[in-house]
């Protein structure tokens, strides 16, 4: 068992693809979103996650960059910890979402439009 200061997610697959999927899920990203962020095709992401193909060094680098990591940080132990951390922030995001939904329609749409505007201003990850 890995010792970790944060609660571990229920499943800890030791394989790279499984961890990539858990990290993606924890962020609430779809495969399309990860593919976009990593500049890969959806098929490539799907293949990596299912372990259907061994990812090239370039693919690993791109996936790492999409998650804001260095390729050397993409080891199972590090990923498992990240999944757990994201699981916590996921709970927080869930609470924020519920709060926004409770406030009202115009408010939700205003935040979506604001986020859209903001993301357009951000530089795209390389």
């Amino acid at each position, binding site marked *: 068992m890995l010792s970790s200061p944060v609660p571990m997610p229920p499943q800890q697959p030791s394989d790279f693809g499984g961890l990539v999927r858990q990290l993606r899920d924890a*962020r*609430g*990203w*779809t495969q399309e*979103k990860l593919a976009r962020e990593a500049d890969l095709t959806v098929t490539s992401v799907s293949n990596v996650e299912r372990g259907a193909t061994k990812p090239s060094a370039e693919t690993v680098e791109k996936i790492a960059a999409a998650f804001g990591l260095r390729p050397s940080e993409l080891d199972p132990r590090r990923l498992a910890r990240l999944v757990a951390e994201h699981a916590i*922030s996921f709970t*927080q*995001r*869930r609470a*924020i*979402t*519920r*709060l*926004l*939904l*409770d*406030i*009202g*329609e*115009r*408010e*939700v*749409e*205003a*935040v*979506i*439009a*604001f*986020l*859209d505007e*903001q*993301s357009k201003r*951000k530089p795209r990850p390389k």
Partner: protein
Amino acid sequence: MSECPHPAKLLQLVSDGEYVPHLRECEKCRTFVDAATKAVRAFSDPSELEAAVRVQIEEVLRDTPERRWSSVFLDSRNTHLHRSVVVRDLRRRADELSGANPRQALSLSAAAVNVSDAMVAAGNPPAPELRFDALKLHSSLLREMGALDEALSVLGRAWAVADETEHREQYRATLSLCGAIIYAEPDLANFREAINLAEAAATVLDVCGDQRRAVIARHTKAYALTVMNRFEAAVPLLRGVVDEIVDAGGSAHDAAIAHALLALCYVRLGLYGDALDHARIAEHMHVELRETVDAARAAHVAARAIAGLGQFAAVREEFTRTADIVFQAGLFDVWCLLRLDYITAALADDGGADVRADAEGVARVAMTIGTTESTQRRRFTAEACNYLRLIATRDMLTYEVAEYVRNYVDRNAKQKPVKFIPPSGADFTM
């Protein structure tokens, strides 16, 4: 207390670091700014917030039996989900499921419409474009499930919503196209209305620059013309469709279907060389798309064209191969028609051809098919195929009678079922 600013405006002011005195006196706006600030920190773009909403929708769906999906969002505990972001998500889910599981897709599109209606009733209507899209998809799924009257009624509701959109004429033309497709369904079979609506839609959509839908409208009109046996009128339309469809943004699948329909028209007009060209193009495109059954159906049309060119012996096996693929896919009604094509082609090639076993097979399958066709339609088709079998058993089957039965079965599949009447002059009593 001063009037609450629009949330978007308020968010912009706060983001720009402006002092907003209203926030000191309004708790609701303070709560919003607090939640929005947290949201902006937690989510890097709208898709992440939408994903978080999706999780909440999934929880509701997971805890609800499928038969209640359409109404579960109306429960009092789910009023926080009466939001446009939820309507968009339910609509997207329905759209994604439409091919694989139309029944589930229909439940989800009904849910999207119900949430949208609840928001209208509460005085917070979603944008008319979103309401329109939800209704249009719901109508389309109702059509796929055979609920044609209901599909038309939902289109009527969308028509009223189209008036509220910025591009009213284009939205209405889109609805006319949807209406044309519904009227061309076999159980309504109002082809004149389908043609009128498709024509009107194509004209407006051309002007609006919606080339993709304009081409689909012309394809729909051409289809209705072929069902009415007006092949000469359908051909120029379909030639235009196959030339334009890809550039107009249509899918390769749609292009392949148009080539196949054009090939069928040429077969019916006796222009077998042209038929073969377009059938081969359709087959190639379907193969590329890995659409095995559609590819087999296109190859079957090619076989009919080759038989028409006087080379029936060369394609005898091809008729069987293509029909086998259709049979394995469970399309038994289509299989019957393909085998009737074979019997007709065999008799055209040799008036004395022994097709008794083939006629027996068609009659047996027609009697037992468990397709989604209406019972009456199935019974009438079975009666026609049984007539063919009896005639063949007595060595009285001619090319003319086989073609008569074949055309009846084809017509019966595409139009309202009409009882089979043996050809006039037939000296055989069933």
